[in-house]
């Protein structure tokens, strides 16, 4: 199971990466893609949507099931990965390269607290 140490994780199997420009990039973990099986459709949030931490904001559908994706931090969706929406199976082959969306946090102080509430690689591995 691939769990990169430079990312943070939610128990609901999203990974989050703090970018140098202050935004947060979000995707799903290797464990999530494997559990879902062949991914065939992604429903990504609309750019400009303002999310609250823990809010349902995207759906990953495999052949067998639909799975909700939750916002790891509060903020505005500033980008979605349309290329991966067009080729959803790329999430299966490379879940950490094929991010789903980016959030610009609404409040940097709040974001720091929300990020620190996420799991590091070891803690996430322990939940699996």
């Amino acid at each position, binding site marked *: 199971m691939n769990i990169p140490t430079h990312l943070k994780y939610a128990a609901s199997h999203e990974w989050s990466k703090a970018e140098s420009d202050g935004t947060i990039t979000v995707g799903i973990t290797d464990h999530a893609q*494997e559990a879902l*099986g*062949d991914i*065939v*459709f992604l*429903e990504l949030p609309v750019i400009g949507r303002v999310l609250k931490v823990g809010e349902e904001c995207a*759906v990953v*559908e495999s*052949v*067998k099931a*639909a799975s909700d994706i939750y916002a790891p931090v509060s903020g505005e969706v500033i980008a979605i990965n349309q290329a991966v929406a067009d080729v959803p199976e790329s999430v299966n082959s490379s879940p950490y390269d094929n991010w789903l969306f980016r959030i610009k946090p609404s409040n940097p102080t709040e974001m720091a607290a929300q990020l620190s509430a996420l799991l590091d690689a070891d803690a996430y591995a322990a939940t699996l």
Partner: protein
Amino acid sequence: MPERTPLYAAHLAAGARIVDFAGWEMPIHYGSQIEEHHAVRRDAGLFDVSHMCALDLIGPDATRFLRHLLANDVAKLATTGRALYSCMLNESGGVIDDLIVYFFTPTCYRLVVNAGTAEKDITWMQAQLAGFDAKITSRRGGEDESEKKHALAMLAVQGPQVRERFWAAFPASRAATESLAPFHACEWPTDKGLWLIARTGYTGEDGFEITLPASAAAEVWQKLIATGIKPCGLGARDTLRLEAGMNLYGQDMDETTSPLDTGLAWTIDKQDANRDFIGKSALATRRAAHQFIGLLLLERGILRAHQKVITPLGEGEITSGTFSPTLNQSIAFARLPIGSIGVPLGSEVDVEIRDKRLKARVVKPPFVRNGKSLL
């Protein structure tokens, strides 16, 4: 404690992802459900279906009993090895289960019923046997030594290349099976016991379903894989059967629906007016409550069971939905309002998927047969 088939260790060795299916630990896929689906459509795939339950019905009244028990009529099975698909109904015409019955002699039949319904089915059949001289025996195995000794496993090999590959693995079976017509079976004696090889399946492809002694299953499984037949899990089995227009018990039908509600009116045989089968009188007054039809999603998304369908005649519901790997778009079965004429084929309806309404076209199943789109 979940049940396991004789091939559980073989599944793990082949890299299976195991899930619970009706109390059985079964492979959902061995890496990619879509690759397994394509293997069956384009080449050859192998399924462990030993979780399904084979029942032997033996006795002087076997034929008379089945003519009473089943909505389809076993009287049409005049030659040894012929198979028949039928619903088993309750008194109100609801479907207790769907099954395949194989005819050997008028006093000897084999029935194959679904995994999740097997116990309920056996209880129902035992209750109906009063007054008939016949006995039902489960061949799925059990706790005592005699049951274990007689336990059977079931393998399905499906796909356009399956026959050649099967004969490559078991050359001596060719003479017995080469002229086997669809929905016919033959017994084939081997040094590891008697096999029943049937030209039946659940994928819309040509193939065989093989019932054999459980003790021989692992060796046969390996031999078939060695010919290049790909092991396939229940995930691919579901997408294949939906493309092929085949119902799944518990999803597309159950005890609250009659065969009329689920596209299975053709399995009710009323040719012999004197035959009184369970559910017949209820069906005489029961009309189809719904139109059972196929949907093809015209936009991006995935149709799933229980999504609401909005039509000019009112609301309907999807009973089975999935992504179709062959068509590369989403398909479903749905129960739609019937009105006076039903929703016409080719018309467009809306499906509610989360907070959106997406367009779908009403089509007649099956969607795919022998690897080709029928749309």
